[in-house]
């Protein structure tokens, strides 16, 4: 008898295999965040600097990669291999959870690469804090990846629908989380919107954690936001996968 855990492991290792065969795909996905890092960070006022900017870029990198991950499923829906998986005895939720769990791998790699690039430029990181930060980010991306897969399942053959929704949501989420510039300086309505963006709490938590403030209230709110997104994503995604035909 296979269990949900074994099924999930089968899906996870299948999903991870092309990444392991060709690890540079993870780095290719980072081009845009690296452009922001190289061309935007120097424009920041001195009081912000790398220490403030880099945690946001780590989140951005994961946001870009993870929100697009549904396109892999979309392609498999179109070519027929998703249908083939649906006819196997693998439990339906495992088809989603296994895929979503794989998102954690690029999250870890991207965080490591960005930090490694920034260390020579004076980034000062607290290892324990970064580890907790990556953990929070992983949970967030588990949920975000699930939502991206849900979008793919909803879009089916309408590829444009997937990309329209993904692109439309991506930048508002990113800007409203204060990833590029601080929200605190913005008008009241924008700050109010930011408070409804779960990503805001994740970014705030990452900034504090990179500085080593592990026992801060931002860590708690960031963790809660990530858990909420993670749980919501897995719930919605599993339901969508259950109904997939």
């Amino acid at each position, binding site marked *: 008898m296979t269990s949900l855990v074994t099924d999930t492991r*089968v899906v996870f290792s*299948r999903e991870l295999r092309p990444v392991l065969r060709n690890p540079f795909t993870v780095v290719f996905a980072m081009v845009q965040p690296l452009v922001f890092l190289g061309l935007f960070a120097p424009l920041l006022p001195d009081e912000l600097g790398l220490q403030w900017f880099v945690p946001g870029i780590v989140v951005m990198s994961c946001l870009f990669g993870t929100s697009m991950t549904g396109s892999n499923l979309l392609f*498999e829906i179109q070519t027929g291999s998703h*249908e083939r998986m649906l006819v196997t005895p693998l439990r339906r939720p495992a088809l989603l959870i296994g895929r979503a769990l794989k998102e954690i791998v690029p999250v870890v790699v991207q965080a490591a690469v960005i930090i490694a690039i920034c260390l020579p430029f004076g980034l000062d990181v607290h290892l324990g804090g970064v580890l907790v930060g990556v953990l929070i980010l992983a949970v967030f991306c588990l949920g975000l990846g699930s939502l991206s897969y849900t979008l793919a399942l909803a879009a089916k053959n309408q590829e444009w629908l997937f990309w329209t929704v993904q692109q439309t949501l991506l930048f508002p989420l990113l800007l409203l989380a204060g990833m590029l510039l601080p929200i605190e300086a913005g008008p009241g309505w924008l700050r109010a919107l930011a408070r409804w963006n779960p990503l805001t709490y994740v970014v705030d938590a990452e900034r504090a954690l990179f500085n080593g403030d592990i026992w801060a209230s931002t860590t708690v709110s960031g963790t809660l936001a990530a858990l909420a997104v993670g749980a919501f994503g897995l719930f919605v995604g599993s339901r969508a996968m259950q109904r997939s035909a």
Partner: protein
Amino acid sequence: MIETHELTRHFKDVQAVRGIDLTVAPGELVALLGPNGAGKSTTLRMLTTLIPPTAGTARVAGHDVVGAQREVRRRIGYIGQGNGAAHSQRGRDELISQGRAYGMKVPAARRRAAELIDSLDLGEVADRTVSTLSGGQRRRLDIAMGLIHAPELLFLDEPSTGLDPQNRANLQRHIVELRERHGTTIVLTTHYLDEADAMAERVIVIDHGRIIADDTPARLKQEHVGDRIILGFAHEADAAAAAARVPHKAHRRGAELTISVPGAPRLVSGLLDDLRAAGLTPAEIEVRRATLDDVFLQLTGRSLREGGAERSTEDVHPDPALVEA
């Protein structure tokens, strides 16, 4: 192996399958034949647990397709219209994952994958990315994927669509061999008449969501069509006049008249004398043995070839309502 009762599926307003009663015994090789949108694929999708029936029941490999989906899935193999192996993966990797999906341990899945790669002649391409494979190679890989767990019942949805004649013949040989060696029960859908004719011992003709004939190809042809004489006239009016004159069952399409009559080769000479005497001399004459297309024409008044000629990529999802749903 398969038993359905009043199996029905609606998509919004479209009645794709309307009350199909079907029994398939172990070891049979059955072809579901019909034009686009006849309900073949929808029937197959219900039998393989991909979509639930709107009404009616189906037991497949001893289990109900709604109540015991995983039991059914464990026992069947399914080779869909698309590619089972993801284009971003390597063939061998996909075969091993597929084996694990059916509960095999990694070493066993690896052994089985190697076995199938060997028997389906995929040795040179199994470790390449699937997207770089040719259509025929991908199709062989799909077959290997469907066979990984040596299912007792194998479904194939339009297995040879998009293949060149050589690859089609190759594929048909694999399917027939599979059955001879392992006694696998095989159900396939096809719109290729020659394929159904050559492979299946039992052809089920489906049209508008219903079974309209179910027999061996030989008996279908004998019972529904027999021999035919096809006369081509210069003008439609001549064909119409000839149709009124001949004492046999005749079907006119434009200036072409098809006369269905047993013993056609013996009768053709007398028939022509009679038509000539009436001033209706055909420009072309052909005496033809029955094909399954003729059977279909006879049963529905439409040619399967007309519908079958315009197949395209939309067939991956044959039901528009399903794509939207």
